[in-house]
Structure formats: structure tokens, C-alpha cells
């Protein structure tokens, strides 16, 4: 059904030897920020090459098997984790379209209080809602961002909505970049109806029609530079599983735009020996670790139907957490269920009656670091430490989540938290959560929102890029991915990342 969608895109089978190309700007990474930046540069008449390490993935490549999808689509087989207490799993897509190919299409604007925080703490006074709103508008219009329609919510989302209403707290249908979603809840394994406007079916094909060249299966291994300015990149060609083919691609460019993600970008900079006199690259990594609870209801919920993540509450953003509905293939979600044997099977038997809702946290004191591993590996060594001072925020987020489940009529909760009973009953209410003496390693967390590993800021001693996203110590090399966010955007970072990329790419084009 989309045979012509990828016309003109170079795929693994198209490489027959080494290649050398030149262009005005080479963009590394085809995820949301890279795709938007590349589109913006092409739209302004520049000759642009977009490089993606992963392959093109078509509906006939999709599988309902969540574990297989992770293995095929993500770096390190989807088993990447940030080292620390607790270990926090995270993932990075390696496919045309990047994370947008497997995420839930959530598009939320960052509230102004975050930009105030960025300004006060990091001196970033050139970004706020007034400057970004036109870019939010443009991206949203391009991707058809709108609230999840009522007819595809499904019961798991409706229960969340009703619970928020009963408690009198904010809630709204999730704004998502979809057109014609049928609510099959399969966003995670690749949208089979192509309703989700992931980058591989939206920005990238449009930019190709405008003249952009796209090379997939091209894993960038070095930025060419003379210590003062960048002049291009070198890539090795890898097969869909990431194995090198022996062929190389070299791109000479006036501008190098990095959008490889906030884990890969610092690794590439470090491996390329980019000047970093103040050791800022990879430092200060921040994340939104999230924790989901499973609530069991008296009637069937059939969580496998309805928009994957169709409802959210922004009530507690200023308190450091956001609540939302959640779904993924049972094989992925069920890994957090407690016990084993017939007890575990009993919980599996209740999946039909269950809903998973999560809180994710913008933790003030917790942070990590990204380092390149020695040798040839381009997988990052990521450490992240959940600070004990942030435990009260996590605890409050869990209590509010439990409160929502009880308000929705759940009979039991499975917290999956060490030190909290395996099953919390309605009679027990919030007590088990309130009384728990939680430590970071007691909580099962996962984080898909990462940022701040190559912060922007005015001071080269405390940041990596300047207001134009250009490296302080390497001219003609810019970063436009979420690594430049100085701190948490409080909400899902994709839309703000795209809006920033839209703005920055426009500025880069104007200055060329």
C-alpha cells in the first residue's frame, strides 16, 4: 500500500561499494528532531543529506511480537539500561523515523514554567512559549496533531478520564500525531494502518519530494573536523541487524547537524575527539523515569483495544510528575507482574480486566552521564542515579495514581514495588503506598524520555551548544536533538524537540 512512499531513499541493498557525497547540510538521525530539521533546511532551498543507521521498516515487516520488535528495531536489541540503582531500562530506535516509528504519537507542548526554569537555572533566555508557539503550530499542522477522538479511546482510557473527573483533577484526550487512528493499540510494534504520522511517512517523504537525499543503513562513526570546524561525516554501511557490510559513505558538508538522540550524539562527539575543554559532553543527562501500576477491575477492560496512550492528566506537572494511560504488547507490560507459578498465571488471567496507567517523573536531583565505550562499539555507557531526595516525588506520583485507580472502581492493584504488598486491595486503599519506606532500588522504573546530555546555554563552561545549537568549540557543527534541552520539559519531549529543531534549522539556514 505504500510502495512508492520510499522511492528515492537509499537502502542497504542499494550500496555496491564506497560512496562519497557532498551537500550543504548533512543531518544525522531520522527521528523526530532530525526529520523536522532536515525538512526545514530543504524547504529553505538547501541541498540536504539525511543519514539513518537503521533500515526502512514497512508494514509487511511488522510483527505483533513485542520482544521481536524490540530486538529488530532498537539498539542493543531493546535491552539497553542505564546503570545505577535502580537499573533503568531505556530504548533507542534504529529505524527510519527513529522513535516516532514505535512511540505512542504523544504531542504535548511544554508549559511556560519549564522555560522559566531553563532561563533561571541555565541562562537560556532565548526560548519560551512565545518564541516556540509558531513552531509548535507548524509542526502540529504538518502532522495532524489533535486530541484522541472519543470513538477510539477504549475502556482503559475512558476509565482514566472518569476517574480524573470524579476526583476533580485535570484530564484531557491525548494530543497525538495521527490521522484516522482505528484504536488497534499497536503503536509500539509499528502502526499497521499508517495512521500514525511517524517521520518515515510524513516529514521524510515530503522532504525527499523536495530534493533531500536519504541514506539508510549508514551508521555515522566520525565527524570530520580540524579542531576548529566540522567539514563532514564518515559512515559505515550496516545491514538491518547492524552488522558492517564493509562499505563506507563519506559526506562532505558545510554544516553537520546532529540529531542522533541524546545518547548517540555525545558518543559520536566523544569518539570523534571533538574539542571539549570543560568536559561537558555527555554530562548532566536527565530523564523522565516512569512507573506503571496495573489495576484490576470487576468488568472486562480489554486493554488491547483503544488508543495506546489516549488520555493524560497534567494536574501535577508543577509537582514533578505527569499521569497517563499506557499500553504495549502483553509480553512487554507483563514483565513487571509479580510472582511466578500459578500465582503469576492468575494475574495473566486478569489481563482482560486490567488497565495500566503510569506516572513519569521530572526529578530535580537525579541525573546521569553518557560516555563512549572503548573500542569499536558505538553503544553508549549510560549511568543514571535516582537521588533519594527525589523519592517523595515518586511516592506522591504513585499515591496519586493509586487514588485514580480506586476512583475508577479498580478492585486490586499490582504495584510491582519491593516493600509494597504484591497485591493492594481496595480496602487497604493508599496506606501501603503511604507507609512504604521506599528506596530508589525498590522501584521498577523505565525511561524513554531522555535529554540534557549536550545542553544549550550561553556559558561554554556549563553547556555544549550556543543559542544557535552550534557547538561552542566546533564551528559548523550543530545539535538539534533533545540533548540540548537544559532540563526536563515536564511533558513528553517529542513535540518540543521538533519545535526547537524547526526553529533552529530555520536559523541555521538563514545564517548560511
Amino acid at each position, binding site marked *: 500500500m505504500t510502495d512508492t512512499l520510499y522511492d528515492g531513499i537509499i537502502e542497504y541493498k542499494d550500496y555496491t561499494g564506497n560512496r562519497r557525497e557532498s551537500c550543504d547540510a548533512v543531518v544525522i538521525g531520522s527521528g523526530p528532531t532530525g526529520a523536522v530539521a532536515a525538512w526545514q533546511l530543504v524547504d529553505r532551498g538547501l541541498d540536504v543529506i539525511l543519514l539513518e543507521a537503521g533500515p526502512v521498516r514497512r508494514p509487511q515487516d511488522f*510483527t505483533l511480537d513485542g520482544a521481536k520488535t524490540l530486538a529488530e528495531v532498537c539498539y*542493543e536489541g531493546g535491552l539497553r539500561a542505564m546503570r545505577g540503582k535502580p537499573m533503568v531500562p531505556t530504548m533507542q530506535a534504529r529505524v527510519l523515523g527513529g522513535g516516532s516509528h514505535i512511540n505512542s504519537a504523544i504531542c504535548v507542548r511544554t508549559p511556560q514554567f519549564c522555560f522559566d526554569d531553563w532561563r533561571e537555572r541555565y541562562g537560556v533566555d532565548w526560548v519560551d512559549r512565545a518564541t516556540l508557539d509558531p513552531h509548535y503550530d507548524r509542526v502540529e499542522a504538518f502532522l495532524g496533531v489533535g486530541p484522541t477522538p472519543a470513538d477510539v479511546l477504549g475502556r482503559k482510557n475512558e476509565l482514566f478520564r472518569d476517574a480524573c473527573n470524579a476526583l476533580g483533577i485535570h484530564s484531557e484526550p491525548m494530543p497525538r500525531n495521527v490521522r484516522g487512528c*482505528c484504536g*488497534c493499540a499497536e503503536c509500539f510494534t509499528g502502526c*499497521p494502518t499508517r495512521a500514525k504520522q511517524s517521520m518515515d511517512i510524513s516529514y521524510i517523504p515530503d522532504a525527499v519530494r523536495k530534493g533531500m537525499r536519504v541514506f539508510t543503513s549508514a551508521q555515522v562513526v566520525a565527524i570530520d573536523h580540524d579542531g576548529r570546524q566540522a567539514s563532514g561525516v564518515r559512515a559505515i554501511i550496516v545491514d538491518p541487524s547492524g552488522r558492517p557490510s564493509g562499505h563506507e559513505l563519506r559526506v562532505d558538508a558545510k554544516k553537520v547537524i546532529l540529531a542522533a538522540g541524546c545518547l548517540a550524539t555525545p558518543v559520536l562527539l566523544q569518539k570523534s575527539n571533538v574539542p571539549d575543554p570543560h568536559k561537558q559532553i555527555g554530562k548532566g543527562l536527565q530523564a523522565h523515569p516512569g512507573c506503571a501500576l496495573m489495576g484490576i477491575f470487576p468488568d472486562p477492560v480489554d486493554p488491547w483495544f483503544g488508543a495506546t496512550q489516549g488520555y493524560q492528566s497534567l494536574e501535577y506537572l508543577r509537582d514533578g510528575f505527569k499521569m497517563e494511560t499506557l499500553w504495549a504488547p502483553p509480553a512487554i507490560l507483563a514483565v513487571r507482574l509479580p*510472582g*511466578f*507459578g500459578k500465582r*503469576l498465571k492468575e494475574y495473566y488471567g486478569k489481563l482482560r480486566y486490567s488497565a495500566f496507567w503510569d506516572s513519569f517523573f521530572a526529578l530535580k536531583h537525579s541525573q546521569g552521564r553518557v560516555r563512549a565505550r572503548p573500542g569499536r562499539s558505538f553503544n553508549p555507557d549510560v549511568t543514571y542515579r535516582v537521588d533519594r531526595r527525589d523519592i517523595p516525588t515518586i511516592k506522591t506520583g504513585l499515591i496519586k495514581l493509586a487514588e485514580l485507580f480506586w476512583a475508577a472502581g479498580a478492585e486490586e492493584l499490582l504495584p510491582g514495588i519491593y516493600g509494597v504488598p504484591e497485591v493492594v486491595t481496595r480496602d487497604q486503599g493508599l496506606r501501603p503506598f503511604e507507609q512504604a519506606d521506599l528506596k530508589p532500588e525498590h522501584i521498577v522504573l523505565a525511561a524513554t524520555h531522555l535529554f540534557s546530555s549536550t545542553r544549550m546555554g550561553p556559558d561554554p563552561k556549563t553547556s555544549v551548544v550556543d543559542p544557535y545549537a552550534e557547538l561552542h568549540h566546533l564551528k559548523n557543527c550543530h545539535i538539534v536533538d533533545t540533548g540540548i534541552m537544559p532540563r526536563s520539559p515536564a511533558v513528553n519531549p517529542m513535540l518540543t524537540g521538533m519545535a526547537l529543531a524547526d526553529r533552529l534549522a530555520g536559523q541555521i539556514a538563514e545564517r548560511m
Partner: protein
Amino acid sequence: MALFLLIAILLLLFIVLRFRYPRPARDYRHLRPADVCVVHAVSDVMFPDGGAVAVSGRTADITGYIDRYLGWHAPSLRFLVRLMFALIEHAPLLFVPTLKRFSDLPAEAQERYLAGWEHSRFYPRRMVFQSLRALMSMAYLASPDVERAIGVERPERCEAAAIVKRSAT
């Protein structure tokens, strides 16, 4: 010298006999006989016959799935998974304690042993258990029989989407 050689040979013989694993009933591409033994044993404890979801771990072919799963990953990850199996298999020496391997323990002792990992106060030990359970659960839930048993259905209006994917699998 002769006595030393004799002791060495006897020791080697003991180790070979003691730690030899039977050849699996079918061939696996990535799992070795020792791995198969551990996976079978863990599968029997984690997903026994009967219960709310009647399908057992053996019927769901957890071992076959894990063999395929290892094939999707890099050798370094395959090594780590095997290391995990080996740890579970031989750690009864530390945690029970007994000279028996996990796969040789009686069923009740296997349950107690795994419960010890699950509820350990030592975080890395809990992590190993969670990783093991995650792997086993992914394999179990990937079975169409299990999916049917827990009631996963595709809504009619998304049938087109489901067909696209089914045709690919």
C-alpha cells in the same frame, strides 16, 4: 606423580559425570544442552500445568522461543543470557545450600529457591530474577495459545490492520 594423575583423572571423571547434561529431545540452534535443562526447569516452575491460564510453559514452547530470541541478538547478549542461566543453575550451592543443581532440585525446593531470588534484600539478585522472569514471560506470552487463553482479541474495525500484520508473521 602417578597418584596426582590418578586423582586428576578421577576428579575430571567426576566433573564430567556430575555436570553432564542429557542431549535435548530436539535440536536448538543457540541453546546448549545445559541451557535447555535450565530453561525447561524454570519454565516448569514459572508456568506449570493448569491454573488461570491452562497452557503450560512446555506447551507454549518457551524453550523454542528463547532459542529463536537469542538468534535475534548479538553474541555478547547471548553470552549474558547464558551466564544468567548458569548462575540460576549453580547458585543453589550458595543459597540453599546444596551440591545439587537447580534443575535437579525437587519441585518444591525449586519454588523456594526462585522465591528467594525474587524477594532477596540484595538488589542485584532481585534484578537477575526480574530479568529471568521477563525473558520467560516474553516467551510465554508470545504463544498464540496463551494469547487466546488470556482473551486477546482484535476489534473488528481494526481487522485490516491485524490482517496486514498476520500476513507478515
